[in-house]
């Protein structure tokens, strides 16, 4: 067993247990949002899944078994969680 496993990891920026504060994706996953937010809507017909190819959901939210063998521990940009508050 790796001794590091015993040390509890916790991110004080986003409350995740997958990484430490120094390696939080929220350090770089920062978007400059448009001033005019009136036009926002979630066009369900334009959502496609990188994991199964079907319409209506993002890849991170796919109910099917993950196809890629590279792990996605912290979640990616292709997730319902990556939308701004009013759209979630």
């Amino acid at each position, binding site marked *: 067993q790796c001794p590091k496993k015993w040390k509890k990891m916790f991110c004080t920026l986003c409350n995740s247990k997958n990484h430490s504060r120094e390696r939080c994706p929220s350090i770089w996953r920062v978007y400059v949002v448009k001033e005019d937010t009136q036009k926002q809507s*979630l066009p369900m017909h334009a959502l496609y899944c*990188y994991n199964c190819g079907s*319409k209506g959901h993002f890849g991170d939210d796919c109910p099917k078994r993950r196809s890629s063998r590279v792990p996605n521990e912290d979640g*990616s*940009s292709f997730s319902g969680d990556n939308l701004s508050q009013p759209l979630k």
Partner: protein
Amino acid sequence: TLNSDYPWILNHDHSRQKEIADWLTMEIKDFVGYISPNKNEIETRNRTISKIRQAIKQLWPDADLNVFGSYATDLYLPGSDIDCVVISKNSDKENRNSLYSLASHLKKKKLASRVEVIAKARVPIIKFVEPESQIHIDVSFERTNGIEAARLIREWLDDTPGLRELVLIVKQFLHSRRLNNVHTGGLGGFSIICLVFAFLHLHPRIITNEVDPMDNLGVLLIDFFELYGKNFAYDDVSISVSDGKPTYIPKSDWKDLNTRGTFTLAIQDPGDPSNNISRGSFNLRDIKKSFAGAFYLLTNRCFELDMATFKDRLGKSILGDVIKYRGKAR
């Protein structure tokens, strides 16, 4: 010093940016500005093409010369070849006799040196260097699909902010890893454009019209490498770019495709839905690995610089080790 390795950061220091993603966005714009051709280079290129066009019309009055590929869409790196095609109204010029007569005509007119005639390839071409400008030129014959593709890409560039910038960065990245040559299983220019085009049109923040891609090139570049390096299901999902509306299609729904359940990139040709334009990119394993590597390099660099003091950040590059630019100075 550091600066001579990363010439695009000279006089463009962004180390005091509060958000590391904004610093990366600005550095991407600086790099694109740095590798974009200046007025002299554009004039030299145009003059060279028109000299060769005149010479071809002199030999064959029914023929014309068209430029396609990266030169026609302004998506080229310094020193890349110009792709041209000879189209004629009356007769088919794609035969061995025409290839050799054009080659010797150009040599006689002192418009071509280091001439190679590749007559037996699937697409027969003449490769040469124009002596005055030293530009490398490839000429093929009677094939209009390249011209069609260039027209389509110009439309995409008009309606997709950020496409040009991200394509140039990804091209330079793959070039530095020798993964951009289709002959050795790498990703061709059109495949790279399709990957970036689909990425931008399917990104959650872009489809909801929350962000302007030009203000977010930094985070979008990392998101691109994350998608195609870590998450995309190459075994099960293909990409369609028809009608200017990129979508995914389960490989099982693409009837003519025979790579269902196998680790291959599949991009449907907008001009021929049965054709997979990326079928030559057999080295997908290294391509995916290199994209994941770029994701880790960029994010690690962001973490490192985010913790550093402003003094330690001064004159640093985020992009430098990712794109490893070693081209001629501009």
